[in-house]
């Protein structure tokens, strides 16, 4: 059972378009991370959000953590081919003292020139 539901599973867009990836759960998380993974590489951390309602911006990427800390979104403005990759959200469990993360199933994003 996936505690974190990511949508959509796959997204193909043209360069210059905007996109949003969603990460939803019925569970409350102490923190939420977004990673991007390219073929043949490990996931690379993009951002960590810890406060309900928090919004963080990283150049063309905007991350939001829901007020109740159950959901998050990643918005990319004017997508570029370099944004292509597998986007993964991962939640830190409030009741888990070992620091384990729950990963979503991932969203494969393809940006074509």
């Amino acid at each position, binding site marked *: 059972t996936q505690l974190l539901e990511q949508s959509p599973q796959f997204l193909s867009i043209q360069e210059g378009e905007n996109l949003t990836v969603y990460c939803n759960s019925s569970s409350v998380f*102490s*923190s939420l*991370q977004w*990673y991007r993974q390219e073929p*043949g*590489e*490990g*996931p*690379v*951390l993009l951002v*960590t959000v*810890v406060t309900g309602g928090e919004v963080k911006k990283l150049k063309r990427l905007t991350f939001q953590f829901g007020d109740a800390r159950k959901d998050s979104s990643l918005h990319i403005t004017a997508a570029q081919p370099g944004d292509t990759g*597998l986007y*993964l959200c*991962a939640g*830190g469990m409030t009741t888990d003292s*070992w*620091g*384990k*993360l729950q*990963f*979503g*199933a*991932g969203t*494969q994003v393809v940006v074509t020139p």
Partner: protein
Amino acid sequence: SAVISQKPSRDICQRGTSLTIQCQVDSQVTMMFWYRQQPGQSLTLIATANQGSEATYESGFVIDKFPISRPNLTFSTLTVSNMSPEDSSIYLCSVDTSGDTQYFGPGTRLTVL
């Protein structure tokens, strides 16, 4: 953050054999994790490896199949034993430096014939 290296980066093995994957971190960390990832899919946690204690395995993973060593605060190994084609996957190690965020190695791509 942390810089993590893994060896080997990829390997092709015969069924019935074993492979040991090494994970080296550039700083001392308490918590290390081992994941398995099918191509294009999300990460599945195999076990948590803390220095000085036995590894903690997730449901569906057992020590006889995936023995783990954690001899010090910068190094860990994962062995995939008595391999079958179903073990073909990407194996990733990660470290937790703050209790909420994990940093990943580049992964080891394993193919079992």
